């Protein structure tokens, strides 16, 4: 019995391995019917494998009994003996299985008590279904197990076993053919190779239509080759037995033609390439051709509209292909215990009324006391800018305004023509006799909308509203009447014939004479007090560019500039004899020393002054008061005396590097201080106390130290084109006038940039002059006005100079766009002499 035990144990192992899924099948939920089926299928397959193994191992042991049994079994059933054996084993080891069954039931009870479901009910339900299935599908297979019914003491167990014996393919009849081999078609023949073994022999297949060999009725075996290879040969190929097939007799073309015309079936025949003869096509073949021509399916039996058989789709045909062979876990089809517990809790709560379903949540009241008395605004933040309120309506908006508020026709037209955004008022004022006549306002919605847009789209900026009196912006300055005396009005006018433009004016240091240089080329000297012309000299060399009295009081020297020449004049007849003598001595000493009428510039060693000649005028001229001529290159434009009256500097145009020259009258010498000029020099000026020299170019003023021959500083004027410069008599302040209407005040101790830039003239400034002694300065401009300023310069360096505008002097007429050209203060008195383009020179007195 040992071998039997062995098989039994092995089969038991098999059964125990099977039992679990079977057990689980019993509890399957309704949705897992298919799964269950699949599981069954798996199980059965597994079983087969095991059976093969078992068969392999136990063949010799079960030779007689099993073989006999096998003979009894039906042929279709492959290995029914193992099934029965398993059943036997199950029966024998029923105790063990029962135990598991009991356990299962216990489990069921437990789960049932907890989950609230009765699993047995479910099982019963599915059990019925299973039974049905069994009866319908599995009956032919399950029936052979004769021992089944005898052993069916336990209903469930038998069902389970029945399920196990299901062949998956049988449930789906379509697979029957495929599984033919498994069904045991064929005979078992004792094997020749294995002793005592068997082999299965199958019948030969009968090749039917459709199989490849069935169409092989062609006797020619040459295959698919070009038949022209046999063209030269008497045969056309070989038959199966290797004999030649001779070319059939072929008629000539005429025969062919005749056969075509005579034979009615000729057109239904085709040339057989291999046999080289025409073959009559059968009706079937012709039908195929016809179908192909019509683009139909060549198969006549083919039904394109046959009903669809849903093999894999539709209800009940789903095929589940498991990705893993793992058995379906229990949680997939058992309702969750915890969920159920939770639900039961809720149900209980609802029953007890603790929970009201669909009750609206307790919301906050729509309004409540949001503000209290203790609220504090924390809106002192710099970025907090509340939206500005709309301004209150004005009377103009009234439905019944005073009549003057209504717009006139022109105003109405203007209102309509201006853009909507630019209008001062956004409505047309109207007057209605009574309130009932007032129409609805059309733009109300639009206005509200625009206000809303403003509120969230308009950037807000904090604008400081200046609530100051505009007058407070004007600087506090002493009143002009406190700062008297200063020139106020014209007292004397010096009229020039033909109104020739007076370019330059100068007053003598003793304050008695006024010299003017006009464009007619005549230097005139006038009596300051009464305006009488007392002396004149025609230089006959074009317009007088500039003239200037020497500031030295003991002499009466006047330098006038014309094109290419500097003339040193002296109205000797007018002055006292001592002064005249001083003057002549000063001017003529050099002639005496050189004993020549003509003297070439003393600075011969200085390169580039060779062309400058000091010329002694003739006797006649000398008697009239012309002392020296200095011939210089270019046209000298300005002369500037040194304080002591010996040196004077000239600026000439068109003289390249010799435009700035410094002359010494006592020695009749000329120096050119600059080898190269920094730009177009406008004006030059001597410092009153130091050996310094100021050169004004177009934009800058450079201060040079003449003794050490160095540049002290460069003043940046900030103007575009300097027209005039003057230095304060104390030498630490400087004013410039510019053609771009500006006057700049430099404090030389303070900075290289202007302390103040004033712009009050409407046209270019022509001249700016400090009073030599009084705290006054004046500026003249092309707008025909002269501005008088007071300027106090304090000793304290920390205190800024006080500049007070005092007076605007009007009187000069503007001629050809030129107004006042030159100014000169009368020394010691608050009087001003001005020359204009209208040919007038005026003396302005306080």
């Amino acid at each position, binding site marked *: 019995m040992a071998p039997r035990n062995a098989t039994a144990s092995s089969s038991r192992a098999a059964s125990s391995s099977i039992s679990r899924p079977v057990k689980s099948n019993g509890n399957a939920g309704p949705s897992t019917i298919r799964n269950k089926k699949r599981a069954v299928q798996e199980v059965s397959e597994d079983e087969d494998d095991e059976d093969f193994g078992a068969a392999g191992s136990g063949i010799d042991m079960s030779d007689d009994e099993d073989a006999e049994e096998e003979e009894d079994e039906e042929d279709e059933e492959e290995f029914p003996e193992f099934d029965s054996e398993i059943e036997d084993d199950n029966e024998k080891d029923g105790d063990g299985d029962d135990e598991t069954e009991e356990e299962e039931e216990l489990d069921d009870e437990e789960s049932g008590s907890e989950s609230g479901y009765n699993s047995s009910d479910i099982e019963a339900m599915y059990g019925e279904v299973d039974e049905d299935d069994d009866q319908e599908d599995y009956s032919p297979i399950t029936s052979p197990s004769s021992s089944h019914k005898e052993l069916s003491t336990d209903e469930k167990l038998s069902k389970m076993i029945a399920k196990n014996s299901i062949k998956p393919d049988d449930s789906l009849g379509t697979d029957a053919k495929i599984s033919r081999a498994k069904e045991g078609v064929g005979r078992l023949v004792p094997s020749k190779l294995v002793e005592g073994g068997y082999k299965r022999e199958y019948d030969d297949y009968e090749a039917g239509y459709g199989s490849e060999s069935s169409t092989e009725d062609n006797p020619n075996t040459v295959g698919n080759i070009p038949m022209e290879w046999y063209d030269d040969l008497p045969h056309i190929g070989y038959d199966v037995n290797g004999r030649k097939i001779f070319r059939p007799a072929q008629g000539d073309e005429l025969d062919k033609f005749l056969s075509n015309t005579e034979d009615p079936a000729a057109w239904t025949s085709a040339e057989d390439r291999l046999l080289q003869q025409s073959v009559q096509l059968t009706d079937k073949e012709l039908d195929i051709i016809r179908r192909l021509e019509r683009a139909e399916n060549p198969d006549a039996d083919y039904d394109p509209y046959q009903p669809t058989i849903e093999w894999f789709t539709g209800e009940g045909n789903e095929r589940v292909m498991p990705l893993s062979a793992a058995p379906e876990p229990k949680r997939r089809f058992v309702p969750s215990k915890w969920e159920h517990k939770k639900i039961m809790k809720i149900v209980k709560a609802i029953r007890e009324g603790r929970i009201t379903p*669909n009750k609206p949540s307790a919301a906050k009241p729509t*309004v*409540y*006391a*949001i*503000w209290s*008395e203790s*609220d504090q*605004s*924390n*809106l002192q933040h710099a*970025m907090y800018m*509340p*939206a500005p*309120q*709309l301004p*209150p*309506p*004005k*009377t103009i*908006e*009234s*439905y*019944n*305004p*005073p*009549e003057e508020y209504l717009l006139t026709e022109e105003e109405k037209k203007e209102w309509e023509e201006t853009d909507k955004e630019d209008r001062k008022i956004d*409505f047309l004022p109207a007057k209605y*006799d*009574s*309130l*009932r006549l*007032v*129409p*609805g*306002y059309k733009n*109300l919605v*639009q*206005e*509200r*909308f625009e206000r*809303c*847009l403003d*509120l*969230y*789209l*308009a*950037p807000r*900026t904090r604008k400081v509203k*200046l609530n100051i009196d*505009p007058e407070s*912006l004007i*600087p506090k*300055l002493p*009143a*002009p009447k406190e700062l008297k005396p200063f020139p106020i009005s014209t007292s004397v006018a010096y009229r020039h014939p033909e109104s020739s433009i007076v370019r330059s004016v100068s007053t003598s240091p003793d304050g008695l004479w006024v010299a003017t240089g006009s464009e007619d080329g005549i230097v005139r000297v006038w009596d300051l007090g009464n305006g009488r012309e007392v002396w004149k000299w025609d230089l006959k060399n074009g317009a007088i560019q500039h003239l200037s009295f020497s500031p030295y009081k003991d002499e009466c020297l006047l330098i006038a500039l014309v094109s290419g020449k500097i003339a040193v004049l002296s109205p000797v007849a007018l002055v006292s004899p001592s002064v005249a003598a001083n003057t002549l001595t000063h001017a003529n000493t050099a002639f005496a020393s050189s004993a020549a009428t003509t003297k070439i510039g003393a600075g011969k060693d200085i390169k580039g002054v060779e062309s400058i000649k000091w010329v002694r005028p003739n006797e006649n001229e000398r008697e009239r008061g012309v002392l020296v001529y200095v011939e210089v290159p270019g046209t000298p434009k300005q002369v500037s005396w040194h304080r002591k009256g010996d040196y004077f500097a000239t600026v000439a145009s068109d003289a390249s590097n010799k435009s700035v020259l410094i002359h010494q009258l006592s020695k009749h010498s000329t120096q050119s201080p600059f080898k190269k000029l920094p730009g177009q020099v406008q004006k030059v000026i001597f410092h009153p106390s130091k050996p310094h020299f100021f050169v004004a170019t177009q934009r800058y003023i450079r201060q040079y130290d003449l003794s050490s021959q160095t540049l002290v500083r460069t003043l940046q004027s900030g103007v575009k084109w300097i027209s005039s410069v003057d230095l304060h008599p104390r030498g630490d302040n400087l004013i410039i006038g510019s053609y771009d209407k500006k006057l700049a005040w430099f404090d030389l101790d303070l900075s290289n940039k202007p302390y103040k830039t*004033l712009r*009050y003239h409407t046209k270019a400034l022509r001249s700016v002059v400090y009073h030599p002694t009084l705290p006054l300065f004046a500026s003249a401009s092309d707008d025909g006005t002269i501005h008088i300023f007071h300027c106090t310069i304090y000793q304290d360096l920390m205190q800024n100079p006080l*500049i007070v*505008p005092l007076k605007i002097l009007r009187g000069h007429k503007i001629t050809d766009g030129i107004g006042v050209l030159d100014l000169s203060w009368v020394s010691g008195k608050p009087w001003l002499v001005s020359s204009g383009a209208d040919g007038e020179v005026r003396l302005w007195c306080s």
Partner: protein
Amino acid sequence: MAKIKRKGESGAAKNYVTRNQALKKLQISLSDFRRLCILKGIYPREPLNKKRANKGSSAPATFYYHKDIQYLLHEPLLVKFREHKSFAKKLARALGRGEWALAKNLEDAKPVARLDHLVKERYPTFTLALQDLQDPLNLVHLFSTLPTNPIPGKTLVPSSVIAECSRLISEWKVWAIRTNSLRKIFLGVKGIYYECEVPGQGGESVKVRWLEGYEFQQHVPTDVDFRILLTFLDLYRTLISFTLFKLYTEENLVYPPPLDVELDEKGESVGAFRLVEKKDNLGVESSKVSKKAVRKAIRGIKASTGDVDADVEMDEDEQAGNEEDDEEFVERPTKSGEEVEDVATAPLTTYNSLLATSSNAASTSKQNLLFSPYTFYLSRETSSRTWEFVIRAMGGKIITSLNSPTPSDDSITHVIIDRPITVERMREMENGRKWTWIQPQWVADCVNRQKIISSEGYHPGQLLPPHLSPWDGEGELDRPWLEDQQNAAITAAQEEADQEEDVIEQDAPEEDESEDEKDEEEIAGSKYPPALLASSLDPENVSLLHAAELEAEQNGVSYSAFRNQLKEAIKANSKDGSTKSQVGKKGGEEDLRKIMMSNKKAKLYEKMQYSNREKAAEKENLERKRLAIEKRKRKEARA
């Protein structure tokens, strides 16, 4: 070594973000951002240097303050927006799938964004809320007048919103009537402006002005984006309802006041609300402090208006000390036994009965109201919405054409009528009673002047005197002649009572004569008394004017005559002065001082001068037009 400063890490580049950056940061759509900005009150800023703020780019951009956006980041509304977005998606999905039950469930659990916290955040104190109440009232009123059946493509305002708006505005008016806080009214071209004085936090009173359009169908332009307006409206509705709650609670009233549906359907506007007083003592006690404040505020108002007799104030001052009187001031319900929460069961007081009930509590203030002694009958063509509100707020009683189609009540004192009516018809309707027939403007003018003015010139069919704005703002013209006319009218009316009406006729030729004589008068300046002359030389000087008035009184010159004299004198002097100033060249000196101004100051000065000149020119233009009109009128009168 100092820390290296990198570009874009401080200053304007850090302080400002563009709108697109903000959108990216907040991860919301532009429309959501717009809504958020509106609700949170965030607005763009103008950086001083745009290029620097835009990190070197000069492309046009809208800038926001960086911290504003930072605050938006943790705004609870943002979460609500996101919730709503996902809700909308779910709902659309459910509807698309035809899952109606699910859709209904979703709809029931719809996320609702509440704006309470925004109200408190934007207006930390009640006073601030009141100060910003103008725009909300304007907009809410506008919406209350929109058509309730939405015009497709134009307005898609739900009718419920419109109904709520009209409810809010009515509640506001009911409150104003109850507290008699209306101060000013102005009938404009755009609509009617009202101004109320509302007690804010700590009793400081805030003036709230709002505009109501006339009762016509609103013209809705096509380019108005109602989504923006509705977003604003959401906030404003919340703000107003909270404000009203506070105001009603201060008055010890239940908010919201229940609406009497019957009256409402009859067409009553403000009268349809029933004011219910609060019953619970707890509420009273908690609001005890605020009561004091309210009373203080009321006293403040009285002091400012100045037409309250002093002894009443004294009484109130005495009361202010002890608490028991305080309790009395709070309108305590008669039966305080049961706590009546239900509004329906509480005793209702309609507005008609309110005047009577509240008279015992606040009788002192009521009696001093402008229209307390009068009963007005509103003719049917007048807007009851406006005049009922105004008259009731000023303490008057009202009978509308709704109650009785023709005035028949004996208590009527005034009939407001806005159409021409014959004297015979008037007498016939009066039927022996003495009524004052007036046009609506009379009411407005009375309110603005805080006194009952003569009805002369306001009778039906008469040409009305001009209606002036009660807010004398900048650029308003002085109109002393109007005062004169008014005074003349009053005196005329007084004299009319006992004399004939030839006074006005006498006045007119006098004026003409004075006009003719003017030339002579100008030459003979010495004919004016010295004080008058001095006053005319310096018309702004009040003390001189006073002296001149005294002098005139001594001389026995009437006030109107004195005014005429003064005017002429001023005119004569100004003519002289203008010639003098040209000669004297006073301006020349100032011109010179201006030379010394710095560039910056000079520009500022020029700007100020420019605006002053503009204003002066405007004034002058008005004056010129007025004179021309007067001249023309005189000529017409003469012809």
